């Protein structure tokens, strides 16, 4: 079996375990390439169906074409979508684009707290998230089934053992489990799979006339394109095979301090 099929089969197995074990299960969909591959894998696992709702935490600062793309796929693939917004913070305007918060604080309220509000409202006990180990060093330490306490906090110093595909599916009331079916994939694997399966991805990933493309997608004020001439999936794969720049180099919030991202994740960020 080729290694892409190995990755795929493992992800399907994890997704099916999650669906069996969690009555209130949802999947985060950030519209990016990873969560779109995740969505595709869900359809693989459930024979063309997506038997749980998708949650999009909308900061309202997303690049506009992301929202158009989102709504089109929801229609075409008949998906159930829940959009969560931290209305209160948006109303008071304490955000980075308004100059009233740092980038990390803004991520904390609009994304992390926004997520918590959706989880609380719908009583989700299992949330499927498309993070990968190779993206960022604290994610490299993640488990496939990763518990969060009632405040969404991640106790990274005391994670459950995870072996032989026996996952943490027993948990206390009030806590929830993040399920990470893409944890073992690399950025390159994701693109190779997009090519193999011919998965539609948002055009922002492809180079424009100015020779720029997004490698990682987030909010417009904190996400910057990279210089690239890769206009097709194949060209992106070729580019990634030789690049030495890290994937999240265009994500400004990671760089505010040495452990900025770690702190965000400990508090419950994806």
């Amino acid at each position: 079996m080729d290694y892409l099929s190995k990755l795929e089969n493992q992800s399907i197995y994890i997704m099916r375990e999650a669906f069996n074990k969690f009555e209130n299960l949802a999947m985060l969909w950030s519209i990016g390439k990873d969560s779109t591959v995740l969505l595709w894998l869900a359809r693989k696992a459930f024979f063309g169906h997506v038997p749980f709702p998708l949650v999009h935490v909308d900061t309202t600062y997303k690049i506009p074409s992301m929202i158009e793309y989102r709504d089109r796929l929801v229609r075409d693939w008949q998906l159930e979508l829940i959009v969560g917004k931290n209305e209160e913070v948006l109303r008071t305007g304490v955000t980075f684009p308004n100059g009233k918060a740092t980038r990390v604080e803004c991520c904390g309220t609009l994304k992390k707290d926004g997520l918590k509000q959706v989880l609380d409202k719908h009583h989700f006990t299992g949330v499927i998230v498309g993070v990968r180990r190779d993206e960022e060093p604290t994610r490299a330490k993640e488990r496939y089934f990763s518990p969060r306490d009632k405040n969404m906090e991640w106790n990274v110093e005391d994670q459950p053992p995870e072996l032989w595909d026996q996952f943490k599916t027993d948990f206390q009331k009030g806590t929830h489990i993040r399920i990470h079916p893409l944890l073992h994939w690399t950025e390159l694997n994701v693109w190779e799979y997009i090519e193999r399966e011919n998965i539609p991805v948002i055009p922002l990933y492809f180079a424009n006339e100015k020779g720029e493309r997004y490698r990682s997608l987030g909010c417009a004020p904190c996400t910057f394109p990279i210089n690239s001439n890769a206009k097709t999936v194949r060209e992106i794969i070729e580019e990634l095979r030789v690049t030495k720049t890290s994937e999240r180099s265009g994500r400004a919030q990671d760089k505010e301090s040495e452990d900025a991202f770690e702190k965000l994740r400990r508090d419950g960020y994806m």
Partner: protein
Amino acid sequence: MNPVTQPAVSSAPTEQLKIVIVGHVDHGKSTFVGRLFYDTGSLPEGKFEQLQLIAERRGVPFEWANLMDALQSERDQNITIDTAQIWFQTKKRQYVIIDAPGHKEFLKNMVTGAANAEAALLLIDANEGVQEQSRRHGYLLNLLGLRQIAVLVNKMDLKSYSQERFNAIETEYRKFLGSIGVEPKCFIPIAAKHGDNIAVRGANMPWWSGPTVLEMLDEFKVAELPKDQPLRLPIQDIYRFDERRILAGRIESGTLKVGDRLLFSPSNKASTVKTIERWNAPSRDTASAGESIGVTLTEQIFVERGAVAALETAPPYQLTRFKARLFWLGRAPFRKGQIYKLKLATQEAECEIEAIDRIIDSSTLGTISRKENEVFVGRNEVAELTLRIKRPVAFDVHADIVTTGRFVIVDGFEVAGGGIIAADNYPQRTSDSLHKSDNIYWSHGKVTDEQRARRNGHPGCVVWLTGLSGSGKSTIATELERELFNMGKHAYVLDGDNVRHGLCSDLAFSPRDRQENIRRVGEVAKLFADAGIICITAFISPYRTDRELVRNMVLDGQFVEIYVNAPIEVCEQRDPKGLYVKARANEIKEFTGISAPYEPPTQPEIALQTDQLTVSESVARILEYLHVQDADTAITI
């Protein structure tokens, strides 16, 4: 420092190999990984500079380890707390490097890392030599099923790159590994801090003619999927999509084809594969190990999550106990007398320790002795033990089939231990519907029933006592046996509890298992009767149809059904085994008379009202019915 940057590889890798780095704390695992990445040009742009900046800002020497030790708390303490994974590529393949912590406190994280790997590099500090975790990790790697192991003797610079020191460590550690049956691929002397023998040889150890770490890595083999082993498809879930009932699961071993007859364990139901389901993939009529698929069946049978599908010709064991080698990671010990959750493939069942044969210190390999009343496996200990499971589970011996031969134990909300199933004399169960052949005939010997009866002074028969627990079946049975023996007759009691120790030890108390229990006892009683013996059975045997089944097995008139009848209040008051108390407290499920039905015989040969009759009166009634008289050979016991 001169990085030896390899040209970036642009040809597509065809395979991926996962390697775990283990060893004692501070023996340089994270440093080795950092250096390996630097020397192979695998660090992302700016990472080296960032690590330098961190060291400068903190006023500490530069540390390669900070590449993997991403947590602030790890950098603060200069130790690895949790396992992390990182990727790099050689010309041959892509590698996933799993860095595991070496501190005893974080053994569960080491296990997490190692259980996901296909090969291991074990680091030993040349200066400190073989330490507690060096040995423990070696032992655990073996237990976790890792067979490809290489040992790196690190920090050779601290020992002046001494060949003697390297040889001494190799001799000592090889001996240890040999004693647990591990054959390491090779030992390599390195100095991770300076890069000696990692990607290039360097000038410091001219005496070394063996491979560099990088050369050795490419010698490891990617784990092959067990396609040629017996089929095991543990069912994860049943979906109803688009008017199809799909059984979903991953084939753990073997190969499956459309048209295959599947046996589902432990329910023992069988059906045939109608289709193999995939989405957005070429349709194929076969699937094999490693594939997450769905199947539909021709006959709709009841199957639920946990069932293991196998070919009828090679099913797994289905029993309520097995022997295992187990490691314990939980904070609280694994105690006898306490109930835990067993997870084996997709099955879950309550289990407990039946007996512990040996508790092992996985570092010294010594046996840990405890006081007689302290039966437990402590944190980080390994044990050889027997587990008893509340209901039959399907399993294999780990040495035969890996995935259905291993399990984890959940204590409360946490996975607290894991184990592999050891070989033993497990009975292979054959189901009623299985291995039936039309070509089997009852073979008659040359001694007739009449001849036997004449010799014995009586014909063989089955005296079948049925009634509630506590109604007096066993008391009457043993008394009857003694009376008959005293009268010179050949009599033998088949007792319910006794057969469950052996003949029926794989059965629980579900209606289905009770039925199978009675069927087997009936078959044995039939053989006894055929041998000319008065076979007395004392089983609750609550179902009328089951008793009828036995009646029909034996010759006309050979089956004597005796209804041992006492009101349930009387039985409950007697409660000789304390079972009613437990049943009322809900500790026993499906207890006849309380939470499971009893169907009294409609036309028994004899009915004994045991709340009104004494034991000897009851026995006399039976003897009267059997028309037995004293034989000349009578003796009294």
